[in-house]
């Protein structure tokens, strides 16, 4: 289960070694030298893997939840079963869910992705469905009365008006996935959790923990910020008022 051997020299021995490792030996909270030395072999790959992990999970989660929400939008009875299933998935602690998938899918990226996608479903499904339902009734009536087919109304009126709620859901989902992705490293040996777990396993190495953790937080804030910008770009009318 402790499969994070890959990745090159991560932990310099605390004792012994050249004087340039003084910071590491003292195990201070932040060693700039260590960071620059380990950026290419350790930190950047971990970040890259984490970004890929997140993008895949969010994309699949978005598509799945959109399909489910559209079905539930047309056939109301679908909502409850979907909510129950996605709620249960969301409630299962991440570590447990990863493990429950392991017998069938092994210690792979797939396992991690399946679990991470499951965590996004509830919030994305809910927000999308609610966003669609909150489109004012008279707007839908006008769209239909003017001769839009149900598909045209959905694509030109209802989905655009639901966009703010959908993007709000994406923000929450993205941040959740980035955060849980660190735990996923325990399973698939990828992502920003790898440096963190490595740093704990051989006596606690503070710099690595702090830097990897900060990168995860930074990544989440950037993702959130990008989505906020996306929303501003896609929905200019939300800022118009008398």
């Amino acid at each position, binding site marked *: 289960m402790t499969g994070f051997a890959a990745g090159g020299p991560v932990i310099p021995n605390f004792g012994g070694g050249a004087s340039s490792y003084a910071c590491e030996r003292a195990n201070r909270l932040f060693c700039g030298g260590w960071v620059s030395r380990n950026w290419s072999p350790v930190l950047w790959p971990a970040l890259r893997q984490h970004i890929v992990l997140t993008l895949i999970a969010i994309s699949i989660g978005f598509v799945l939840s959109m399909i489910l929400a559209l079905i539930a939008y047309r056939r109301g009875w679908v909502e409850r079963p979907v909510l129950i299933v996605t709620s249960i998935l969301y409630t299962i602690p991440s570590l447990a869910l990863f493990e429950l998938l392991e017998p069938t899918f092994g210690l792979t990226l797939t396992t991690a992705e399946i679990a991470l996608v499951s965590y996004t479903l509830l919030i994305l499904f809910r927000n999308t469905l609610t966003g669609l339902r909150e489109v004012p009734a008279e707007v839908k009536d006008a769209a239909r009365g003017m001769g839009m087919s149900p598909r045209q109304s959905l694509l030109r009126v209802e989905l655009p008006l639901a966009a703010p709620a959908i993007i709000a859901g994406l923000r929450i989902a993205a941040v959740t996935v980035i955060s849980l992705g660190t735990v996923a490293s325990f399973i698939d040996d990828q992502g920003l959790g790898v440096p963190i777990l490595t740093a704990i396993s051989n006596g606690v190495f503070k710099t690595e923990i702090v830097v990897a953790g900060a990168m995860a937080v930074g990544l989440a804030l950037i993702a959130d910020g990008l989505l906020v910008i996306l929303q501003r770009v896609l929905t200019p*009318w939300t800022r118009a008022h008398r």
Partner: protein
Amino acid sequence: MSTANTAQPEGSSASRQAATLELRDVAKHYPGQRQPAIADLSFTVGAGEVCVLVGPSGSGKTTALRLINRMIEPSGGDILLGGESVLGREPHQLRRHIGYVIQQIGLFPHFTVAENIATVPRLLGWDKRRTAARVQELLELVGLDPDEIGPRYPAQLSGGQRQRIGVARALAADPPLMLMDEPFGAIDPITRTRLQDEFKRLQAQVQKTVVFVTHDIDEAIKMGDKIAILREGGHLAQYDSPAKILIDPADEFVAEFVGADRALKRLGLETLDEVKLLPPNGAVSSPTVTRSTSVRDALSAILADGGRPVTVVDESGKPAGTVTLELLGGLLR
């Protein structure tokens, strides 16, 4: 501004773009309800006429309206637009050729005003230039500045402006029929009067066939060429011109609905222009009335002044005649 290449020319040949509408034994039953919402409704609206559906709540007037553009499917009977049954046409296509204005308007918040108005032309595949020209034309028609209002979003407009845009949007593809469901219902009385007057002016210009739903008999009398008074269950109590309904209500229900003051309402339909005035009597009353004052308002002025004769002045303010209680009262006979 030339209207060539945008829509059918307005004016006298506008009747080309206004169709007759006929409801024939139309019925609507909802499953699980004992009484039908509409039992058996038949009437005809001539091209270019405004027909007002009016009645108490539960009379099925909105249902009847929504049957015409098949927002609700009829259970029985037929509806003919320009002689052709609407039931045979594909609903979405049908609705693109019927103007639709509802009480809450339903402007698309995410479209600019221009994009809102361009909705049906876009659905019909008009090219950009034609659409843009039409949008401009319509904004001017409803009294709004195209350059200023066009790029705005509905959230930036006042209620009255939104109402006008709703009408403009319905007129965009120059439909032969307009359906309006209590379009002025959600507005304050002052703005409502103004919008009603504007719509009458507009209608005089474009001369569309209009079916207009309201619960307000006064609005019906003001706006309608023909009024259809509906009773509970969609039963047609009377279908006539406003004057005939006021003079000769078909039954007690109509008489009651129209109001005990129907004689006075009738006087509201005529102006002093149509009355033979008495010669000026030397004195000038205060206040005065003009020839365009309605007979009813003139009567009100007389009564306000204690029954004394009221002077009618012309445009320059000079006395042109006198009206008295006896004279105006005699019009009722």
